């Protein structure tokens, strides 16, 4: 049952991934823009169990690794997203006050996005990548957090409805 529901959610991720790669990537806005797919994946993880969060992170990370614009080796995003998905779902697991409060979800995802990107940067640095200027990194991280604050409230109604339709009894 769990695997079947997880597989049903996969096409949803593919659609969001396609939107990210074809449409969102056309826009260059303040602070290097935002990743709709990353925000979606973390929001989805935040609504599920830690197991589901890790699995979601794995699937989402794998798709992000397959992106042509991914600069690191295949598996780098997967590793980061497994940890991010697990952590974000673990934080709110079993706490209905947390899950039921939209504001706390916005805050946790807005914090998780820059932290995830920062961890990706650090891991990339360990694999021999370049960091770039501190100002650019700082601006980009802050901007991604702000973009997340703006986007999560728009995404949340759709994500929570689809998620509860698929996993309502798994997350309780």
């Amino acid at each position, binding site marked *: 049952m769990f695997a079947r529901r997880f597989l049903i959610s996969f096409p949803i991720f593919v659609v969001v991934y396609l939107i990210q790669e074809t449409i969102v990537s056309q826009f260059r806005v303040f602070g290097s823009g935002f990743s709709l797919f990353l925000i979606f994946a973390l929001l989805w993880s935040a609504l599920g169990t830690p197991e589901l969060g890790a699995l979601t992170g794995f699937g989402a990370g794998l798709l992000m690794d397959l992106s042509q614009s991914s*600069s690191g080796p295949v598996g780098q995003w997967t590793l980061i997203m497994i940890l991010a998905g697990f952590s974000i779902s673990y934080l709110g697991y079993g706490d209905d006050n947390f899950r039921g409060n939209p504001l706390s979800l916005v805050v946790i995802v807005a914090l998780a996005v820059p932290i995830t990107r920062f961890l990706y940067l650090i891991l990339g640095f360990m694999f021999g990548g370049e960091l770039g200027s501190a100002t650019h990194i700082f601006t980009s991280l802050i901007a991604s957090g702000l973009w997340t604050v703006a986007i999560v409230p728009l995404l949340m109604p759709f994500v929570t409805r689809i998620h509860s339709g698929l996993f309502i009894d798994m997350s309780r």
Partner: protein
Amino acid sequence: MRNGGDNRGRLLLISLIVTSLFLITLDLRGVQVLSGLRNGTQSALSPLQSVAASVFRPVGNFFSDITHLGRTRGEIEKLQASNEKLQQALINRKNADAELAQLKSVLDLAGTAKYKVVNARVISLGSTSSFAQTISIDAGTNNGVRQNMTVITGQGLVGVVKISYPNSALVQLTTDPAFRVGARVAGSQQIGILSGQGTNKGVLQLLDNRTTLKVGDVILARGSQNNRPFVPGVPIGEVSKVDNAAGAITQTADVKFYVNFSALSVVAVVTGAPQADPRDALVPRAPVPTPVPTVTIYAKPSESPTP
């Protein structure tokens, strides 16, 4: 899980982490299957990106213009209010004109240096989740585009082809923090290494401590062996600030790139370069001041003033 009773969850987490580490190891060891997967994804996505670029690029340019025209925002908003209907029609036309102008200027530059080029449209502006600065173009191996080829516009150096797929290619921009190019100063021929910083400025480090830089010096690509990854003579930018730190071993300077990376729509990939180095032939010409005509008006009082 939180109560510590769910060993299955821990096992799953560990399995997933091990899998991802396995994938990283395979990729770093150069296993073809993983790069093939990435190539396949890109081959499937590039037609969709081309369509999306045609539809959404005018909208993207519109937002980009608003972001970069902060000083005149009030004036723009005023004009937008009065010309709302006309503007939508004009955006498409402007987009086509801008692409035409970029294409013309890049052909002018390539013609001056006798570069053999393949023109390409920008179909994606790269990753927004990682810190790498890249673009995707709609020309690939089927068009003769290969890895480590120089990418230019009419203004100068855009970057270098990092990965080439059958119908598209990923270009690492000059602004990317990992970007390095051998550079020389036009005129004085001093050489150095220019590196991207993630912004519209790069940092040039001279190799010789006896030479000096000054603001306004034009920086050109020095060129690589067999012209790959860089053909010689491509303008990169001009020195905007010189760092004269007392303890520095060699002089460094900030270089403002000529290319406007937020408005890239048409680029050219240099597939062949001439035998002779164009030297300083591609240095942008300084603007020639246009003469301002003066009009002298003689006022003559009328002889009989009207009542």
